[in-house]
């Protein structure tokens, strides 16, 4: 438990000295230490190749065990806990066509709940609720490849919400979206009462959604703190290949 703004908050993710080297020898993560509290929204920023996506994949146990410790809701990320962890930690990938791999929207949204072992009745209920939550009720029988990008993004979100996760990880959630669809998505995310980790270069989005940011570069955490404070630090941002968001300039 940690005290924040007078409230006692529970640590939901704990990463200690995480290192990861890809099979081709690329060192992607170097000694990452990170604590995330329940209900927090965290922005993960950094230049291309900083290790953001690699870190996100570790939180769901996709990349296997690296060196170091990762704990999700008190469970160590290791083979025996993966089923439970994957139920609790949901990842929405950048490219919705990678997330929507089943022939119909229903099958895609039901994929997670079925693998979790829910009963048929519960699966159908969860699919219905998740689609309603993202404003896509009635799309069950549609084929994913016939949807617009905005619709695909919403369905992608529904595919993980149907698993009732406690932690929602979003990798570049607004990439390629037009302003209206982007605004809808931001409102949708703001209304979700979950612990959120948002990785990406849309710093205005991170400013709107996240209370805290973590700046990664070359596999290391180079800065962390309150969102506005970190994002308005011009020299820090420029040194790490980023820019101060437009809304924070000239202040």
């Amino acid at each position, binding site marked *: 438990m940690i005290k924040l703004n007078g409230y006692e908050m529970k640590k939901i993710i704990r990463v200690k000295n995480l290192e990861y080297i890809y099979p081709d020898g690329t060192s992607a993560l170097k000694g990452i230490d990170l604590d995330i509290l329940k209900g927090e929204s965290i922005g993960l920023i950094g230049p291309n190749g900083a290790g953001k996506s690699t870190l996100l994949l570790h939180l769901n146990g*996709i990349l296997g065990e690296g060196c170091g410790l990762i704990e999700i809701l008190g469970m160590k990320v290791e083979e025996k806990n993966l089923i439970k962890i994957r139920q609790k930690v949901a990842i929405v990938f950048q490219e919705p066509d990678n997330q929507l791999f089943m022939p119909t929207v229903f099958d895609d949204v039901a994929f997670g709940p079925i693998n979790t072992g829910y009963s048929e009745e519960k699966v159908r209920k969860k699919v219905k609720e998740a689609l309603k939550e993202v404003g896509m009720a009635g799309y069950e029988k549609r084929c994913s490849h016939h949807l617009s990008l905005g619709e695909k993004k919403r369905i992608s979100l529904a595919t993980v919400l149907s698993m009732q996760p406690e932690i929602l990880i979003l990798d570049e959630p607004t990439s390629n979206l037009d302003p209206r669809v982007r605004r809808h998505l931001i409102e949708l995310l703001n209304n979700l009462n979950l612990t959120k980790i948002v990785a990406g270069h849309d710093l205005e989005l991170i400013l709107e959604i996240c209370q805290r940011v973590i700046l990664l570069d070359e596999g290391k955490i180079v800065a962390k703190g309150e969102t506005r404070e970190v994002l308005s630090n011009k020299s820090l941002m420029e040194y790490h290949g980023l820019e101060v968001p437009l809304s924070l300039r000239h202040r």
Partner: protein
Amino acid sequence: MHLPEIDKFAHLKSPLHSWDARVKIVSISTLILSIVLLEDIRVAFLGLVLAIILVFLSKIPFSFVLVHLRWVLFFVLALFVVISLTVPGNLLIKLSFFSISREGVRLSLLISLRAISAALLVFPMLGTTRFYLTLKALQKIKIPAPLIQLLMFTYRYIFLFLDEEKRVFIGANSRGWVRKTNLSSLKTIGSLVGMLLVHSFERTERIRDAMVSRGYNGRVKTLDEFTLSAKDFIKASLIIAIALLLNLFRWIR
């Protein structure tokens, strides 16, 4: 991107559309097997008539069937010519150094009738059910899971692959490349196709990540969407009885 889809007419209403996909696949597959085993031209012709009747009952437009059948017909025609000219037997026609035997014509006609009937029957079998339901039906009738997953992902990603292919070639055209039949053009096509394959491989890794993150453990599980009725069994009995009757003569002889 618009592509012709095998289940384009799956929304229609017909006795074949309302037939349970699992029973339909088993029954029509039996009929196809029965037809390809036929040895009598007259019975094979009857098989072709049956196939046409089933296509008619399915309400799938014949124009759609013929468009999709053109490649089959092309191969059948090629086979017809080759077999007619190469099978020895009683001379039927002699043109210059070509000689066509009676047995050759008989065999090529038989193979053509079997092939066209089998290809025609695929339309009432697969074209009257949404493709995803066909996949589920195949899963239910215990077709190996890797084969079904292969079909499923091919169907899901073929559109993306073709989009990507279009983009890659537009990129090349925008830089002045024109498709020709010379060596340089073929080299460029080779590089572009290679790049497409690399992109596809990278995509498969990302899809795998997305699947694993939602609990995939090697088997794609879906909910059952089938209900069997007496009508399904009546239709199945009829088709399987026809399939057996077609071969009855052969067995009696």
